[in-house]
């Protein structure tokens, strides 16, 4: 049996799923009337629903395709991502989820701007959010482009454009309600798909994961079970670890999910559900990755995509045949589509809610106009992500998402924490911290071996490390603090009591 060839069964399973999910979107679209519906699903999502949707938003192409590929190609090193993607969640639930729910309405900028001057803070944090979203989108596009190419035999570029268009339809007509439902459907499908795949792999090793790992060690040497080449430098390892840990708490599309639930308690409980789901899924990636390494083989995986992103679909074809490949490919595509929709929505919220309404319209714009701008922003983001997806062909998607986490951890996380917990924080401090975090992280990524050597084919890079977080996260904190202390802001200090009050009791007039 030849793997990696387009085939009819896989294609039809795939198309059935896409049509089904568009039907869901259509039903949801009829319910999207206000901006609160569009951005926050009317604030009526339950804890379990939001837990599933959070998991759906979080388990992106990076989790399913990227990590499986990294584990298949470099063994234990890929697991560093699995583990790192999960350890951010205690930070989210302990420090971020409830205060965020109680302080803001649609975007995390609401929280940072709570007691500071609205316009400058919103512009800065929208810029930070958009940088995170751009890198996250690139990763999803690269994954989706490879998947469609594998399934349909289309060119990578055409595949990326198709994904961009379908996602545009989703967000444009459905908004947050459709996106939430797509996330839920996708989270359930992804979990069951990954579980079935893992079971089919384990069936060949008498349901003993250790036998699978031992087979991998026998075939590719015991080094695959130990840390090794992928994160070859200690500084890079720590840098990546910090970005993954604190990046989760700065991801705009994840933070936005806390506005879809009615109160702080629901927000908190939804994280517990989400973490259980995500943790379970990441344990499955251990089996999928090593399964692909042993059953598909590293050379075959690399032959289809240099980044290793097609390891899981190829594994599905080997253990379950073409129909199962179609199912897993559809699940992976739904995964990407749902995450892309969530990201685009967060980006549209940053552009229209933070920049357009607050900066150009001074906080007051008619609902109709806001929705129009949000939809126009969605189109711009879709076109941008198609373009970037084509440029970054051949990168591993888990690594790309790691970079998005680095930006989130450096640009958004310090400002969010300082604004909620540090009384002397000022507007200038917030601006400086967010803009420094965004620009410095982007600059270091540009100077890293990933861009300079892999992409531009230069022989050396200006900056020796692939992961900038170790440098940019502490510096963003320091800059925010120093700038705030240099020029105190009385109104920001005065607003702190109101902020503390609202962290515990929620917004006063929200019930109205």
């Amino acid at each position, binding site marked *: 049996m030849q793997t990696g060839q387009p085939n009819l069964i896989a294609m039809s399973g795939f198309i059935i799923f896409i049509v089904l999910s568009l039907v869901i979107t259509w039903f949801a679209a009829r319910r999207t009337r206000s901006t609160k519906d569009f951005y926050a699903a009317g604030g009526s999502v339950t804890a379990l629903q939001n837990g599933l949707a959070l998991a759906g938003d979080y388990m992106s192409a990076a989790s399913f395709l990227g990590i499986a590929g990294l584990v298949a190609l470099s063994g*234990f090193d890929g697991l560093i991502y*699995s*583990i790192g993607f*999960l*350890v951010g969640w*205690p*930070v989210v*639930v*302990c*420090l971020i989820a409830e205060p965020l729910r109680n*302080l*803001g*309405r*649609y975007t995390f900028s609401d929280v940072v701007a*709570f007691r500071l*001057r*609205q316009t400058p803070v919103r512009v800065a944090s929208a810029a930070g959010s958009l940088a995170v979203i751009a890198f996250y989108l690139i990763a999803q596009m690269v994954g989706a482009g490879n998947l469609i190419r594998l399934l349909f035999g289309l060119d990578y570029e055409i595949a990326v454009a198709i994904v961009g268009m379908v996602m545009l339809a989703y967000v444009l007509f459905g908004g947050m309600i459709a996106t939430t439902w797509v996330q839920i459907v996708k989270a359930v499908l992804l979990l069951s798909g990954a579980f079935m795949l893992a079971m089919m792999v384990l069936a060949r090793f008498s349901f003993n994961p*250790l036998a699978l*790992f*031992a087979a991998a*060690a026998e075939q590719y040497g*015991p*080094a695959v*079970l*130990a840390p*090794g080449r992928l994160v070859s430098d*200690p*500084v890079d*390892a*720590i840098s990546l*670890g*910090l970005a993954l*840990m604190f990046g989760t708490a700065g991801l705009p599309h994840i933070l936005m999910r806390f506005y879809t639930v009615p*109160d702080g*308690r629901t927000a*908190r*409980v939804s*994280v*517990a559900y989400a*973490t259980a789901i995500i*943790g379970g899924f990441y*344990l499955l990636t*251990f089996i999928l990755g090593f399964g692909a390494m042993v059953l598909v083989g590293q050379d075959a995986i690399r032959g289809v995509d240099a980044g290793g992103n097609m390891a899981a679909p190829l594994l599905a074809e080997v253990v379950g045949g073409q129909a199962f490949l179609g199912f897993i490919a559809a699940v992976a595509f739904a995964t990407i589509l749902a995450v892309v929709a969530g990201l685009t929505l967060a980006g549209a919220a940053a552009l229209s*809610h933070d920049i357009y*309404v*607050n900066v150009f319209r*001074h*906080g007051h714009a008619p609902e109709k106009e806001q929705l129009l701008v949000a939809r126009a922003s969605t189109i711009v983001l879709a076109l941008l992500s198609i373009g970037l997806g084509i440029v970054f062909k051949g990168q591993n998607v888990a690594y790309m998402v790691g970079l998005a986490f680095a930006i989130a951890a450096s640009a958004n996380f310090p400002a969010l924490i300082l604004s909620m917990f540090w009384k002397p924080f000022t507007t200038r401090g917030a601006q400086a911290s967010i803009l420094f975090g965004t620009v410095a992280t982007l600059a270091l990524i540009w100077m890293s071996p990933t861009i300079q050597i892999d992409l531009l084919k230069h022989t050396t890079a200006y900056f020796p490390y692939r992961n900038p977080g170790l440098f940019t996260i502490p510096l963003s904190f320091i800059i925010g603090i120093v700038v705030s202390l240099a020029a105190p802001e009385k109104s920001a200090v*005065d*607003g702190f*009591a*109101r902020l503390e*009050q*609202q962290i515990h*009791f929620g*917004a*006063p*007039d*929200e*019930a109205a």
Partner: protein
Amino acid sequence: MNGADYIRDPGSGVRDPGPRSPDPGSRTPEPGPLSYDVVRMSDSASRLVTLSAARWRLSIILTATMTMIYVAFILLIAFNKELLGTLLVPGLSLGILLGVLVIVTAWALIMIYVRWTNANYDVAVADIRRAHREGR
């Protein structure tokens, strides 16, 4: 409990927390019976301070625990690859075992937080709200 139980002085115009106009007047503390001043004067104020401190203490302890465990794991990856490569039984390296434990720990820490806040914090916040409403 939802927003309807919020401590508020019906007469005071506490402003919308979200997109506000950049009007400077909205940021300076307004005179008059703003809900926050009322709470500060009442008995529930000290309870809120205690409660708030207890919750942040727990949050910070749990976050620090997670950070230390994870950073220790990363430091082992960075500086002692051989140790993590040690095979405990065929197929199971110390690194894989520790990795699974880190994932399980993250979830356990979240459950500690959620259980504590559901059982203590939410109840206390509701009490303060009720005391506040009845006390006036």
